[in-house]
């Protein structure tokens, strides 16, 4: 029995067309202008819908092991599948930290057990993310790790960062930086600007991000080893990356939906739902992030999905943890906020992050016979609003309540098997 997808508008790295697609087993078996169902075919009528390679999220926090009250790999994977993601990179700030083969293997196996999307564990750059000693990069690479990052923290020590780049050379891993000079953000809860002055809240200055980004761009120039920059949030950061790419440096960058859709004025209610790191910034920064995505300076849209249990967000801003949900709303926020060709948005959600994550052998592939069937089908025009109680994530900290989102995932197919049908998870 095969799966037949009819009438879809296909958008993939090779372009755009209207075809029928048959999936047999874990692969795409046939693509043609018209395919007839055969007996027992499971048919998805995708007329009016868009069929693309599955989305790849470079940046999620699944909280397991350690904070299972906020999210588990299973609930986070379900949120990912419902958001159209067939692969997610799990950040290493778990407890214990993903700094050893044992923990990384555990995360991968939990992902396989859930079977809702491919969970790609990252490893940390430093042991315990303490910023002192390098983790065993080669062992982690041997366990399939592709992204190495201390996300949640930046590597403060420039010597250590230089060594990390040099040592990573040739291991088939990519170092990813959370850019934040911590001496400039002590106690910070929101963007440093007129809004924080008015609210009496300690500011997180843009330059804390830009200084480390600039430092690391120069380290890339020095070492020749590539790097990925996580969740860029400021206009100047976009400029720095644009200039570095023009110089031919091997760098990539991501931005989150919240950094191109929400401004720091959201904090005016003192609601910790809007506390995130790096913080929501100004309208000018949002515009620069959108422009950076538009011209390809920023390669990927990544959610920084960061679940937190409700009671932790019901605290004063300086005590509440930073972070917001993103997996189930990424497409809807992107299509509602970005003035870009649909194919460019999908590129930033699928094949470009797939390449950065080192999984372009199986994700973000052209939809052609013989290719792995990791696929997403969505309605690009459906306008909807998020209902926190209906989220698959174990947490409820979505900042998009009341915001009209555009584009809704209906079906997600993982290795040929539907895991989401008609907007509902099948497992």
């Amino acid at each position, binding site marked *: 029995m095969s799966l037949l997808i009819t009438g879809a508008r296909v958008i993939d790295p090779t372009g755009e067309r209207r075809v029928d697609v048959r999936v047999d087993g874990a692969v795409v078996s046939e693509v043609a202008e018209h395919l007839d169902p055969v007996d027992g075919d499971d048919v998805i009528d995708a007329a009016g819908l868009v069929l693309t390679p599955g989305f790849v999220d470079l940046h999620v926090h699944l909280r397991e092991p350690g904070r299972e009250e906020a999210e588990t790999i299973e609930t986070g994977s379900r949120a990912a599948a419902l958001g159209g993601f067939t692969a997610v990179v799990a950040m290493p700030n778990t407890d214990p930290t993903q700094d050893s083969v044992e923990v990384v293997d555990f995360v991968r196996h939990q992902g396989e057990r859930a079977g809702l999307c491919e969970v790609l564990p990252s490893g940390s750059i430093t042991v315990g993310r303490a910023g002192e000693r390098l983790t065993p990069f080669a062992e982690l690479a041997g366990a399939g790790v592709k992204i190495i990052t201390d996300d949640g923290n930046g590597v403060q020590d420039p010597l250590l960062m230089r060594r990390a780049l040099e040592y990573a050379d040739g291991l088939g891993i990519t170092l990813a930086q959370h850019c934040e000079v911590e001496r400039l953000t002590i106690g910070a809860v929101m963007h440093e600007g007129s809004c924080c*002055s008015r609210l009496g809240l300690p500011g997180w200055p843009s330059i804390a991000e830009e200084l480390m980004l600039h430092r690391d761009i120069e380290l890339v120039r020095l070492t020749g080893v590539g790097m990925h920059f996580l969740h860029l949030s400021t206009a100047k950061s976009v400029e720095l990356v644009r200039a570095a790419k023009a110089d031919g440096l091997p760098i990539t960058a991501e931005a989150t939906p919240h950094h191109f859709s929400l401004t720091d004025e959201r904090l005016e209610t*003192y609601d910790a739902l809007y506390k995130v790191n790096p913080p929501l910034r100004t309208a000018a920064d949002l515009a620069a992030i959108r422009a950076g995505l538009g011209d390809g300076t920023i390669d990927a849209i990544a959610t920084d999905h960061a679940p937190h249990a409700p009671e932790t967000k019901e*605290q004063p801003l300086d005590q509440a943890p930073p972070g917001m949900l993103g997996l189930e709303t990424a497409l809807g926020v992107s299509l509602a906020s970005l003035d870009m060709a649909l194919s460019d948005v999908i590129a930033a959600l699928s094949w470009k992050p797939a390449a950065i994550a080192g999984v372009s052998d199986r994700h973000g592939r052209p939809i052609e016979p013989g290719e792995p069937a990791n696929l997403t089908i969505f309605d690009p025009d459906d306008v909807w609003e998020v209902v926190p109680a209906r989220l698959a994530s174990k947490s409820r900290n979505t900042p998009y309540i009341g915001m009209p989102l555009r584009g809704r995932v209906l079906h997600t197919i993982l290795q040929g098997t539907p895991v989401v049908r008609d907007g509902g998870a099948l497992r």
Partner: protein
Amino acid sequence: MTPSRSLLAVEDLGVDGIIRILDLADHMAEVNRRPNPKVPALRGKTVCSVFFEDSTRTRLSFETAAKRLSADTMTFAVSQSSLNKGESLRDTIETIAAMGVDAFVVRHGSSGAPQMIDAWTQASVINAGDGWHAHPTQALLDAYTVRTAIGRSGGLDGLRMAIVGDVKHSRVARSTIAAMRMLGVHVTVVAPRTLLPPDVGESFADAVTDRLDDVIAEVDVLYLLRVQQERMNEALVPSLREYTTRFGLTAERAAALAPQTLIMHPGPMNRGVEITVDPAELPGAVITQQVTNGIAVRMAVLFDLLGSGNTAPDTTSDTSMEGGSL
């Protein structure tokens, strides 16, 4: 938030609301001058002070105000609280609210905590200072002190005030600057850049300078902010001595003041830092009056929020404010 139910920030009152409170405070000051300074205006009401940060002065001022209006008072201090046992802020508030509280007087080290508490309770919430954000009753008592000292009614149009010192970390500065400007005062902030909030613009103050001597002779009100000595470790000013040299009220600067210039300070004062002369020897010093007026102003706020109406109470007899009815 219902503006008439809670007082979270002085801006929420609007100019009319501020003047209403100041006028009400005139009546309360009259009560306070009586041999028996107590009226039954809020009898049967319960006011709970919830202080998550030490502040004996503000707490005593509020409790005195509540008692003079015959409200019952309770105190919840964090040292004896269950927050130390892991209970959340929300659970704490809801538990106290369940005991039947009409108003919470909240002091919290986190900006925005009173806003959160206001969302969790039907009771009135009076912000008694939150983080760096706001201290509305301080702003009201400051405005009241100026208005009383210069013998005006209504607003304070045309006055010039300089506010000196650590504006960045000061809830007093945020609220007092806002209230004074709403009442028509031209406010100059005097501080080094390190003690200013980022992006201070016209929406924050009328003028900004780091030269006290340039403005000192021209102001009607000189407001000195407290230097928080723990900030000295953060490279905000090189030393207390240098702070005093640049921003302290020294004998030389006192001599440069116009004779009628009011000297104000929210307390507690660091003698030898913000001020090196004895304020008792300065004719314009109204620092003690600020403390005294604090009680009348807080009575006015409590009555405004918890009394049955917004018209001024008849304070001609000791029993006319029975049950809050007028």
